[in-house]
């Protein structure tokens, strides 16, 4: 494990906001287990819990907390200077941080989604959701890490993207669906395990290419922005 990822992981789990990660996956699991044990028809609760809660809320919000936490939190409190005053090419800082963020997000989201998918339909759906959510984790985290370097309010802007763009506009303006990580994740999951639970809006090739483009593009952008990272003077 590289020193950058070690510090990043310690910083992530050492902060109290880490606890924010727990409630949403727990809620997802609870709802799935409850619905199953009460014998509700999976066709009724499946789409709401798996997509409405799991892919539309739990995945992006966890990715937002973690993705802005690995770099944005260090920029906020100034500790990022310790890593930046080292003779490291900047990609050696961004890539480990992104890896930690995407990994933590994937584990936090994929495990409850897998269980919920199994309860709702089949092991195959569980695996499909877990795999698609992991790909989504990488795309979301790359976006939120880059956002940490583009603005001083990454959490706010990230929330606007998740809630307004993906959540609200996605329902009314069909064009925004082509630029929505959530739609890519749904399309990819449906490709791996075709069921009637996932309503896809974008094609699988579009979803794959766009996910890759977002992950690579925003990572490259983050590396470039970190090269020109400026510390704002506080006393002068």
């Amino acid at each position, binding site marked *: 494990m590289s*020193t*950058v990822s*070690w*510090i990043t992981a*310690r*910083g992530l789990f*050492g902060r109290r906001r880490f606890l924010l990660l727990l409630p949403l996956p727990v809620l997802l699991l609870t709802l799935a287990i409850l619905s199953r044990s009460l014998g509700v028809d999976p066709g009724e609760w499946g789409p709401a819990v798996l997509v409405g809660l799991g892919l539309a809320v739990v995945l992006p919000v966890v990715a937002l907390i973690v993705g802005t936490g690995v770099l944005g939190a260090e920029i906020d*409190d*100034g*500790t990022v*200077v*310790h*890593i*930046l*005053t*080292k*003779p*490291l*090419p*900047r990609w050696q800082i961004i890539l480990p941080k992104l890896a930690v963020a995407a990994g933590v997000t994937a584990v936090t989201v994929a495990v409850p989604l897998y269980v919920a998918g199994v309860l709702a339909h089949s092991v195959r759906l569980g695996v499909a959701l877990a795999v698609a959510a992991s790909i989504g984790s990488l795309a979301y985290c790359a976006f939120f890490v880059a956002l940490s370097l583009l603005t001083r309010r990454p959490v706010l802007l990230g929330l606007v993207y998740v809630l307004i763009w993906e959540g609200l506009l996605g329902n009314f303006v069909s064009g925004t669906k082509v630029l929505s990580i959530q739609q890519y994740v749904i399309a990819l999951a449906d490709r791996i395990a075709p069921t009637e639970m996932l309503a896809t809006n974008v094609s699988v090739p579009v979803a794959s290419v766009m996910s890759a483009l977002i992950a690579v593009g925003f990572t490259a952008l983050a590396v470039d922005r970190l*090269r*020109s*990272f*400026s*510390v704002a*003077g*506080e*006393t*002068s």
Partner: protein
Amino acid sequence: MTTISAEPAAPATPASTLDLAGVSRWYGNVVAVNDVTMRLGPGVTGLLGPNGAGKTTLLHMMAGFLAPSRGAVTLDGSPTWRNPDVYRRLGLVSEREAVHTFLSAYEFVLASAKLHRLPDPEAAARAAIALVEMEDAQDRKIGTYSKGMRQRTRVAAALVHDPQVLLLDEPFNGMDPRQRLHMMALLHRLGDAGRTILFSSHILEEVEQVSGTVQVMVAGRLAASGDYRTIRRLMTNRPHVFRVSSTDDRALAVALMAEESVTGVELGRDGLTVRAGDYGAFTRALPKIALARSLRVRSLTPEDESLESVFSYLVGS
């Protein structure tokens, strides 16, 4: 068990020079740093100036954390902006008390050593911690440290790769006099070993023990630079107004008028207002006068001790 000398070894590589050539930095219409040219070589240099003079902006440009709007900052010929390689030779202790509070000092300094890819990070971390005398507390979480201890830990982390140049932004902030003395001694040891040390401060009294050169910044410009003693003399010999109260103000006023350094005395209800032509001579003479007349001085307050007045006096001379 090996013993680690607290004395830094002489740098293996030749001394480094930090060059600023016509450096300016502005934010919109506000000019924070205005056409500063200076060359920093081995030894200790103090960067002095009141708050808002542009010291931090200048330091950030030196450390590669801010692009100059005009001019160039170079370390041994290579620019510091967008050039992480300069950190092989440069260390920075920023003003913000930003530390990973969840790590111990040893873990923190060791992480720095590893990030520098040092051949023996454990030994380097132990040596740096010994240098700042933090061995006793090195395994405690940084969150439990006092301000001075955190500062020393940060200095250790900045020194772990034995840099030729060390920049410190307000390193004495919040330190008690003993810690300040200790830090100053450390900086001098490093400077004497051939390293280029620059620290900033807005409190003149903090830099009393500096033996090196001083750069004075006022309102974004380099107002004075040179030997510390020369500048110190300029500062202490400046005309000054004091408020003095004693057991017998009238008797003291009479005695003071005979004193050469005093240019005027005004007798007020609650004490004397004394105009002194020479800060140093007056403050040395006052106790003797009081003692000779068996007077007790209740209070002595410099009237215009605000930094701005001191600095503007410096700019004028």
